[in-house]
């Protein structure tokens, strides 16, 4: 087993000095070394999207990335979405449209959509479905996730 690397992870604007093996995944580092357990692990093979975080603004499956690869990059997780007690537009839309049941998949969906809407605020409804189809939810049947995301996209556009 190879030794540990010292590195600094920037998560939600805060620096975390961590010591990790080269094989440590980014999601494990975020959860175990930075103590931010809002990012979840559903498969560890890149399919479910529960582990989605933003790295330099782009949605990334943090189970497929090594922590060492994320050094020096700006990482954002679900813990960084709300401003104090105020939920983000997307978080609020999920609540109002009942876009979550067990809530396990929710952080992944929130980060995926946050990233996409920041980059493509005018994304069409059909393309949004294609985006959402990259993450899995087992509870909601997606209908209310789709509603919430469309409502949030609309609200953000008219803001």
């Amino acid at each position, binding site marked *: 087993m190879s030794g540990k690397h010292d590195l600094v992870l920037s998560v939600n604007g805060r620096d975390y000095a961590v010591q990790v093996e080269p*094989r440590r995944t980014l999601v494990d580092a975020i959860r175990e070394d930075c103590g931010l357990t809002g990012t*979840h*692990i559903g498969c560890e*093979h890149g399919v479910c999207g529960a582990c989605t975080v933003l790295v330099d603004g782009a949605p990334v499956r943090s189970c497929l990335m090594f922590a060492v690869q994320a050094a020096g990059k700006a990482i954002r997780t*679900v813990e960084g979405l709300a401003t104090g007690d105020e939920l983000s537009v997307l978080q609020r839309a999920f609540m109002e449209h009942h876009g979550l*049941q*067990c809530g396990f998949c929710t952080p992944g969906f929130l980060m995926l959509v946050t990233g996409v809407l920041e980059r493509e605020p005018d994304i069409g409804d059909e393309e949004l*479905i294609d985006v959402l189809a990259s993450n899995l939810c*087992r*509870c909601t049947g997606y209908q209310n996730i789709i509603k919430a995301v469309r409502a949030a996209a609309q609200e953000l556009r008219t803001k």
Partner: protein
Amino acid sequence: MAQPKQKFVGRSVLRLEDRPLLTGAGRFAADISFPGQLHMRVVRSAHAHARILAVHTADAAALPGVHAIWTAADVAHIPPIDFRLTKLVGLEPYRQRALATDRLRYVGEPVAAVFAESAYVAEDAAELVQVEVEELAPVLDALQEPQAFADGLRSEPAVVRKGFGDVDAAFRKAHTVVELDLTVGRHSGVPMETRGLIARHDRTRDVLELYGAAKVPHWNRAQIARMLGRALESVQLYEGHVGGGFGVRGELYPEDLLVCAAALKLARPVKWIEDRREHLLATNHSRQQSHRVRAAVDADGRILAIDDEFFTDQGAYLRTHAATVTDLTAAMLPGPYRVPAYRAVGHVRLTNKTPCGTYRAPGRFESTFVRERLVDAIATRLDIDPIELRRRNLITAAEMPYLRTLGTLGTEIELDSGDYAGLLDKTMAHLDWPALQRRLAQRRAADELVGAGLVMFVEKTGLGPRDLARVSVDGDGAVEVVTGAASVGQGVETVIAQICADALGVDYAGIRVVHGQTDRIAFGMGAFASRVTVMTGEATRIAAAKVRARAVEVAAELLQAPPDLLDVVDGRVVRTDAPEGPSISLGEIARTLAASPDGGLCAESWFQTDHMNYPYGVHAAVVAIDRGTGAVTVECYLVAYDIGKAVNPMLVEGQLVGGVLQGLGGSLYEEFRYDERGEPLCVTFADYLLPTAREAPPVDVLISEDAPSPLNPLGLKGAGEGGASAVGAAVAAAIDAALGMPGAVTALPVTPRKMREILRQETL
């Protein structure tokens, strides 16, 4: 005049659960850690069937950071895992132990457990454990003649027989007999959160604590205490957030015992987080059945008798559910129809695959598929419109309550209320069925493969026998409801708070609902069989009503007013004849009662019932088939469901839509397949295909409240499973219609490959 009082039951209020889940403050099993914890990794069988010759652990044990490695000998003192809901006897030899002793019976069976300083090291070490075996021939087909399971035991532990009436006479005098062979594939709940457990022994208090509990914490607590030889009070289970249950999560599995025993023995907290591959191999599978069913009918298509022989592929052991799924299949098969004579023979057969348990709508997904296929086949044979045929056979509202003379789960099936034909009419009108059929016919004429299917079903919910709830108000007026329910993400806190709010006279948003904590309440049945809203809800309502009555009694004295002129509104006792006059808050009343012998403003209540209640519904699907690829697209879907009274329609709708998508998974995409050596072929999400947002059709939900349950004052029936129950049946009927080939679908799931086979028959 009394001031307008806010009511919460019946309203789609926002969930109390959401904020922590949206902000990353959830506390799922993997989020819990204790200082000094060890990580467990389970070494699993790579063979479907083999004799264990030796387990070599030396190499693994030599790895730095490995603390201990256990094999069967280390857990020999732990008895096999018992059954939770069965009356059948003689099944004990088929139970599973924490670690395999001398035989391996499925790929994924726990053989050894590694305990190490980190999850990474535990996984490295597990790979170094070598299991030496002599391979044996696996049994992979439940239709195959039963084999020897062990000395003197066959691989058919039970045959469930149910029925009534003279079936043979009915077949003798039948105008027509219709016969079908039908199969349902092996699939399961597959929640997004895998299982996870953390056990810790608090040696100061001598309490064994288990975190990550779900579904039935109180039952599991009692079992763990008994199996590890501890006093009940020295074992406590704690439920955190649960990332979906669907029947599979929270049963007592080998891993529960391993972490508990290890925490005691190794004197360190022990954490185990299942990975996805393990989940697909180790957590209960479900559903796999083959049916040979026949119906005797008269010339008008009236059912005279149904005779069904079926085989449940139960996997390698009988887990906590024993034969529950087989039992429910046999019990629920008659559905909404008048069936004068009935015989079901359900064979529970063991195979060398992952053991099975219940999955959302257990026995109903399967039996609804079988019954509705049968009804469609009768309609085809007699050339009667399938909806008209259903109408002729439906039990009428006038016949309610209707005694089925069948029992299941220790209860007698008495359909408590329902207007089945009324719901069918409503649905047809809602869909504008004739117009829909015309549109589809036009598209078919233009050579599209499109069609609609409509089916009916009866669910069962609110399983007793009892539940307990405690409602208390503290000196600041804060309300707490302590229940023995469990939450698997379905919105229990909100629903229970709504019920409590109305019964007590407070806002639902401030109510704290406790569930899944065995140290907070002595009794709890947990969350299964869509029972929480009905059973826990009613216990809560009674307890809250008692608290209200006590508050009014005390206030009457303090306010010098007759109790019948008092009401509790928004947390204050007010005079209904003088709403602006003097009032007193529940908090103040609680403070006056603080020193009273009954311990303040609180009450506890039981709710008991001997019977389940029976919601019912209609499912309709419109599908389009791609001739080239064989892919089936569900264009739209409808669920009409009568649940008596919806506490929160938004949550009911959420349950139903989620259930539909799971049903579609099992009907079109999801299947645990095995090769001829018993090697599982679906151990990642690349092979076991869950539906995504792309596959999700728009689902229209029609919640009906025509038939409140007479068995509880609010008229509640449960809503958790009716979204899934009839999907296989509806999709099959729609595919038949699209192809213009009645009876084309006889097996689920209809994967693109199977669809292409059907399309080839069409062109022959």
